[in-house]
């Protein structure tokens, strides 16, 4: 339920480019070090998933139905060894998790990128120009913020499904879910950037840039934007965590990624049907990986927010 509350990210407006307080805070917290380590491991696993996996779990020719429900750490009927067991299709759970993790991280990154691309420019323009555009944008943001992200994402997902012809729904699922999550989270960026711009544009360096006749675009992108990077980075980390949880929730609900290209959420959905028949490994291992991912991203995000906030130092 992490995404239900819009976290108020305190704006580090007086933030300086020196990274020493960040490093200092990092050295202090053992928990964050562990979380960062776990996160680094998971990211490496997503990058090298094809090398680390035992087979491509989504190529039917690789699968052996005889090996279905092989218990963890045991040999199948053939040569295959299954470190985390096999599911009902004879799919190696360990390899499926690697690919599923890859999907989850990819969707998370892409959704964050989309909300950045929408939210940051809108926030920059609204904060700098003000006027009717600002008012309109903030009213839209207010209305959207009234609804939980997951609901907005579900709605967008439903609309997209309605618009797409039946045969394309599964193929387009990845894009639909990225758009759904990305569109439901842009408000965070727009609001934060707008607030920060309104502070920055009063400062002398902006006035100086205006006086020497730089164009408005140049002032916004070359002068103001670089000063926004710290708060944007903080929101991006936290909304990455939200995006991963949102994606896994949607996939778990059966409205996200299809079983043919599963994410961790889809794997958990599949695994839950074997909970009562004793094949616990199909459910447990993907759940643990999702847990590790969500927790480590959240911890790193929280730490980053505190470390970049001069008020707390």
């Amino acid at each position, binding site marked *: 339920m992490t995404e239900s509350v819009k976290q108020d990210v305190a704006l580090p407006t007086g933030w300086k480019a020196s990274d020493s307080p960040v490093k200092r805070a990092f050295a202090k917290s053992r928990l964050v070090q562990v979380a960062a380590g776990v996160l680094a491991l998971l990211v490496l696993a997503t990058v090298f998933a094809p090398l680390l996996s035992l087979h491509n779990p989504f190529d039917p020719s690789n699968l052996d139905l005889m090996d279905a429900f092989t218990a963890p750490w045991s040999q199948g009927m053939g040569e295959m060894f299954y470190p985390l067991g096999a599911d009902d299709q004879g799919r190696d759970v360990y390899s499926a998790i690697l690919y599923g993790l890859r999907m989850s991280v990819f969707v998370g990154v892409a959704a964050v990128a989309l909300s950045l691309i929408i939210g940051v420019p809108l926030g920059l323009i609204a904060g700098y120009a003000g006027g009717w555009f600002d008012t309109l944008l903030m009213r839209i943001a207010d209305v959207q913020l009234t609804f*939980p992200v997951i609901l907005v994402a579900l709605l967008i997902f439903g609309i997209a499904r309605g618009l797409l012809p039946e045969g394309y729904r599964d193929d387009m699922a990845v894009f639909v879910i990225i758009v759904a999550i990305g569109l439901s989270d842009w408000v965070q960026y727009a609001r934060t950037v707008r607030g920060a711009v309104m502070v920055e544009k009063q400062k002398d360096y902006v006035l100086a840039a205006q006086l020497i006749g730089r164009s408005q675009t140049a002032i916004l992108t070359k002068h103001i934007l670089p000063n926004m990077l710290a708060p944007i980075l903080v929101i991006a980390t936290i909304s990455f965590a939200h995006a991963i949880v949102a994606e896994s929730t949607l996939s778990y609900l059966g409205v996200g990624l299809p079983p043919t290209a599963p994410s961790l959420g889809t794997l958990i959905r599949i695994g839950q049907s074997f909970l009562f028949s004793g094949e616990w490994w199909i459910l447990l291992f993907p759940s643990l990986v999702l847990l590790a991912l969500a927790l480590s991203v959240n911890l790193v995000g929280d730490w980053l927010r505190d470390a970049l906030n001069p008020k707390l130092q």
Partner: protein
Amino acid sequence: MLVHLLRRLGQSVLVLLAVSLVSFMVFRHIGDPTISLLGEDATLEERTALVEELGFNKSVPMQYLSYVGKVVQGDLGISYRLKRPVADVIAERLPATLELAMTAAVLALLIGIVLGVYTAIKKDGWLSRAIMTVSLVGVSLPTFLIGIGLIYVFAVELRWLPSFGRGETVKIGGWETGFLTSSGWAALIMPAITLGFYNMTLIMRLVRAEMLEVLRSDYIRFGRARGLHEKSLYFGHALRNTLIPVITIAGLQIGSLIAFAIVTETVFQWPGVGLLFISSVQGVDVPLIAAYLMFIALLYVVINLFVDFLYVLVDPRLRKK
């Protein structure tokens, strides 16, 4: 004060209008109702008759007006999948969701406030630290994982509680309640904990932070110097002043509880509105999606207004203005 409440009322109406516009666009422009309602092999005459009946041959603004008019009268269209009036289907499912959300809210408030006060008073105790750590994990966890974990422990391993459904229900008037049977309560426990867990950690952290703030203030120190009993100091004086932000958050969270009931209801196959909505999204049942959207918006607006009203009751400063 009255002006403030009236202004909020005006804003609420605007939000509802905006949502009704989105809802109307979804309703009008997605899918083809003549195919969804009549099937692929209906004749052209049947189709034109339906188009006329639904008013789709009129101009778009006129259609929007008649849509809003119908919604106000409680006519939300006919479900493509169930072929029944949407309003009836939602009314049938509503008691299950409301009972679940209310129980979760009460649980979250009670446990959240108790734990928040405790962790604030015994700030450095080991139990407080353990509670804070668990709450950190709870905030980052996806809801459905908590639900699955509970099912595994209490339904699969211990076999104490049912893993799905509402148990036996009793019908009182049009309201189907699970509160009157023991199997109803047994079925309610795990979903309510799952749904309320996040809000509980949230309320707990909030109460704790506010309490720590208040306990540092002068009037608490004076109260202590006057020899007031610890209990009346904590609960009569300190807690009372932490309640305003708690009311805001708790009020706003009730709306999200009902929205998040979607996830919990899916995990536990709880026959509420959320489960209905998910199957509507999967089955592209457009009238139901649009109606659910309106329903949630209305709920949010009513809750927000109610929270504003509660402020006035709790904070005497607002009454004077």
